[in-house]
């Protein structure tokens, strides 16, 4: 298996995109947190490293939220598909969840299972994270077949809503945080409206840039454990589920109103 990694190279004339993508990802993370703080959903996951421990914990305390550490996970570069327990002396980060109450934090920890090396309860987790039921069900069924389950039956031209577009998940840029069951999942679109409005409250201009990016035509091309995504502005790469014999390519287009 290819080592975990993420890369993003701009096309000529679009030099600002790697840093812009960083800003977008930051806004997406903030939205995720804000939705818990505002009581819109029960939980979100959060990685805490040594370097940002103090700052994040202070913030969580100030916001009256609870951080439940779940696993001391081995540090790895790039997009993390799974958390592995860190060995003694290895660089690590804390994988855990943020909730409003202690009880919810414990529920999340139990459903996650990784602290006790148990299989996760995806249905329970999905509910705590506030995902639509159709998408929880999709993930629960498809994840055992493919741990990067982006509409696994689909290839070629795929039209959908920007709210459902998770092709840039490796770079942390998306409107909703779950794998939508379909590129035209109406429930995801509905959820997305709420998420997008919170995003806009925080940074209208950047939120609109995210929406526009997710609306652009792009290609997601997965082969031999590496996915290559091409947008009009950059090419990005990440480790993914390995298709060995044949590649799977999604040519994304936004569904016309």
């Amino acid at each position, binding site marked *: 298996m*290819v080592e975990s990694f993420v*890369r993003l*190279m701009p*096309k000529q004339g679009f*030099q600002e995109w790697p840093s812009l993508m960083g800003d977008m990802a930051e806004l997406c993370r903030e939205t995720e947190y804000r939705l818990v703080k505002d009581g819109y959903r029960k939980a979100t996951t959060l990685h805490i490293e040594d370097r940002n421990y103090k700052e994040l914990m202070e913030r969580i305390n100030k916001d009256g939220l609870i951080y439940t550490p779940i696993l001391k996970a081995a540090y790895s570069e790039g997009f993390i598909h799974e958390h592995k327990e860190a060995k003694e002396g290895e660089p690590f980060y804390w994988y855990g969840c943020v909730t409003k109450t202690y009880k919810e934090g414990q529920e999340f920890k139990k459903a996650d299972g990784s602290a006790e090396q148990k299989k996760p309860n995806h249905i329970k987790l999905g509910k705590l994270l506030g995902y639509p039921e159709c998408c929880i069900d999709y993930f629960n069924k498809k994840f055992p077949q493919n741990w990067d389950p982006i509409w696994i039956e689909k290839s070629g031209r795929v039209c959908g809503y920007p709210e459902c577009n998770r092709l840039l998940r490796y770079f942390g840029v998306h409107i909703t945080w779950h794998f939508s069951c379909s590129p035209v999942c109406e429930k995801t679109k509905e959820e997305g409206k709420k998420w997008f409005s919170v995003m806009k409250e925080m940074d209208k201009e950047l939120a609109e840039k995210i929406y526009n990016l997710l609306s652009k035509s792009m290609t997601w091309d997965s082969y*031999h454990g590496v996915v290559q995504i091409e947008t009009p502005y950059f*090419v990005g790469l990440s480790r993914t589920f390995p298709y060995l014999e044949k*590649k799977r390519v999604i040519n994304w287009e936004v569904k016309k109103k």
Partner: protein
Amino acid sequence: MGLLVKPYLGCNIKCKYCYEGPLRNVKEPQLDYDLDAVVNTIRENKKTAPSIGLHGGEIFCIPNKHLEILLKETYKYGESVGIQTNATLIDDEKIRLLKKYNANLGISWDGPGELCSARPGTEKVGEIIDKVMSKGISVGMIIVVSEANAGTKAKREKLKKWVYKLSKEKGIDARFNPCYNDKELELSPKKRVSVYLDFAKFFLENDIRWSPFTDIIRALQNSKNKVCTFSGCDIFCTKSATSVMGDGSITNCMRTNEEFILLRDKKEYDTRLEILRETPIKYGGCKGCKYLEMCTGGCPTATIDDDWRNRTSWCDVWYALFQYFENVLKMTENEQLYSRDKKGDEKEKKEIHSHEDQTKPGGHGDYSAHINKLKE
């Protein structure tokens, strides 16, 4: 290589197999470069680049006054700057500038007469080579081996004669690069193995030490000093070639840019090698190939299905050449001359033969077994 300065990607002759052709088809290059930005990028990157070259497109298409600005800048760093050119625009004024700034030439040409038919308008390059050499300018060459100059036995004989003359009479060092950008001009898969083996024998017998043959020997000896093709090139951070564009931005080796120019990643990754090590031969990888650590799967821009996540489509040729030169080195009975782990042979045989539907090798040693494997 090192820093390749490419302010203008246009060209006066536009060879059919040129790897910059697809970019030119998207947008015809203009002489709209920003020399200040180019010079700034050279300054910022000179420290880490082992050498500087002026390239194109055809670099001599830019006005002499701009050429002189670039030559003056590169001259400051003390080494002789290399200029890669099709040589057709070289005149007395250019020779004067080359002399003044101690530049050397890398001339791309595929041979005299019919041999250069893939490079229209280059018929007189032979005379130009003689002229610049007579003025004391050092010349190296890139010869692209294609159907145009090696497609028939008669052409190959002419090519050998010319190569012999270049090397032995003129003392020119050259690279014998395969053409793999044009399906019509690329040597057909049917004949390229035997053609390259024939050339390998010719180079060996005549002690002509040109790339890629010398690189294969070096690779077999675990030398780091070998051509990019066998150096585990990362297509998003080509360490052998840092190309400076006309706007001062930095991209990779231009073979990697087809419909658009992708800027270079700052960090190099081994992802392709990781993939090739684990992917079986029949799915486009190199798993179990005894030459993998030397060959590294070939150039990532000349691959099966044009996908860098596969091995090179020239695997058959490279494998045959690795085996040929390994046998030559073995004949010296000096193990220090070839450092490959000899257990590798056995390991590969096992990998190849253990496959259920493996066509039995035809008794020609492990090369035919490997080729059978490729055909699966």
